[in-house]
């Protein structure tokens, strides 16, 4: 395990222990500087990542904020049929302020449908959704406008909340920076790479500071670094008290979520 791997493992441990994102970044940077200057094996200098993370938590504590907070999203008994095929049966999910929920399951098990029902974009055949506060929704794709610049997207979305142009642009760029993307470009959305367009998509959904954020596989086309940035950003939003629902089929980041809803049908072929 080289320095970078140790640092990455250490970072994951800090996140898991709910150390505030910015504090964690400083600690990781300081450890990296130390290793660069002094050399040496991180396992000897700092010890195992878990142990060092535990020592850090003991020194600086974990992220403040009430947790779990009040319920922000409550979906009960969601059932959806397309023709004779039942896509969702009696799905239930509760997410509180300051929580990240993951919706997982095999392809075609209705993850996106469930999210769209939560967002109020389609109606279920049965069930109810209660949302407290403002909703933000990031579709899997197609949420951007090909012939507009990133800035114009921010202005358009911001105006919905009565935001003036300047603040909307600044808020958009700041949110993009958190994802490691400099949005001050003069490139039309259609010329952005898949991963960057997805960052634009994501930035649009967080711009209006929603209380409940629904994300449908938001990391399509992301490289490793962007992927880490995304989860940092989600942790930051969670620590600010947002309720976040992420549809995902990647299981390795589940250790960074608070609740999991598995939509894989319990019994195959048991449809009525």
């Amino acid at each position: 395990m080289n320095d970078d791997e140790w640092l990455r493992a250490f970072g994951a441990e800090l996140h898991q222990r709910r150390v505030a994102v910015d504090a964690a970044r400083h600690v990781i940077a300081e450890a990296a500087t130390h290793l660069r200057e002094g050399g040496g094996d991180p396992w000897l200098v700092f010890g195992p990542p878990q142990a060092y993370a535990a020592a850090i938590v003991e020194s600086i504590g974990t992220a403040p904020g009430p947790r779990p907070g009040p319920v922000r999203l409550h979906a009960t008994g969601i059932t959806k049929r397309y023709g004779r095929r039942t896509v969702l049966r009696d799905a239930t999910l509760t997410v509180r302020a300051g929580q990240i929920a993951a919706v997982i399951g095999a392809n075609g098990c209705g993850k996106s449908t469930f999210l769209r029902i939560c967002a109020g974009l389609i109606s279920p055949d049965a069930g109810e959704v209660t949302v407290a506060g403002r909703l933000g929704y990031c579709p899997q794709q197609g949420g951007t406008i090909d012939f507009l610049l990133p800035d114009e997207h921010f202005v358009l979305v911001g105006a919905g909340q009565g935001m003036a142009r300047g603040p909307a642009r600044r808020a958009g760029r700041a949110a993009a920076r958190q994802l490691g993307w400099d949005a001050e470009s003069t490139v039309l959305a259609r010329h952005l790479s898949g991963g960057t367009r997805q960052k634009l998509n994501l930035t649009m959904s967080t711009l209006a500071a929603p209380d409940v954020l629904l994300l449908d596989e938001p990391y399509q086309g992301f490289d490793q670094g962007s992927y880490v940035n995304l989860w940092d950003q989600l942790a930051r939003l969670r620590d600010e008290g947002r309720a976040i629902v992420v549809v995902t089929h990647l299981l390795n980041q589940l250790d960074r979520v608070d609740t999991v809803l598995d939509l894989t049908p319990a019994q195959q072929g048991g449809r009525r």
Partner: protein
Amino acid sequence: MNRLVTVAEMTLRELVRRRGVLLLLLLMPLTFWLIRRDSHVGQSVRALLLGISWAVSTAALFATSAARELEPRLRLAGYRPHHLYLGRMLGLWALGLAVSVPFFLLTVFDANNLRYAGIAVAMLCCVAVAAPLGMLIGALLPREMEGTLLLLTVVAVQMLLDPTSSAAKLMPFWSSREIASWAVDHTDDGYLSRGVLHAAVVTALMLVTVAGLFGVRLRRRRHLRHAPLV
């Protein structure tokens, strides 16, 4: 108001950047004009008006289809349905007027003995009707191809129908044909007033239908309840 203007502005920006589409928009009425140029000037004026109608409604159709995925999102971001369809319509009307100006000048310089005010009014009517018509078709038919074909049918039928038949009066662009008669053939003022009235009624009808469609599509779903933030 700000939301309305922002949607209109972004619609315009988006359309203006589609250079290819814009070029074809301008090319179509021009070719219509040129093809009929040698015959009676009334023929070429009518062809030009139909060209403008076709061009603007196609632009409206494409703009509506392109925004299909985005609109639910903007709705969540705080827009009401009327901001979205009225804003888009305003943008399209502005584009239609801009496209009409060079063609109006074309008639002024390339043809004589016309009531130019009539030409201008006819163009206004074309643009007024075309934007909501394209949006209506775009809202009804999810695929651009189907929409384009339907639009083509409407314009072709409009072109082929005898304007004096009662069926022709049911076509959306009948107004421009009436007003063109007044402008080119110096017919009585009844043609002008009938045309303007027809355009106003058709535009209003189309607008109400578009409003209804958008209202339904972007409605608040009954299963989703909003609780106060605690």
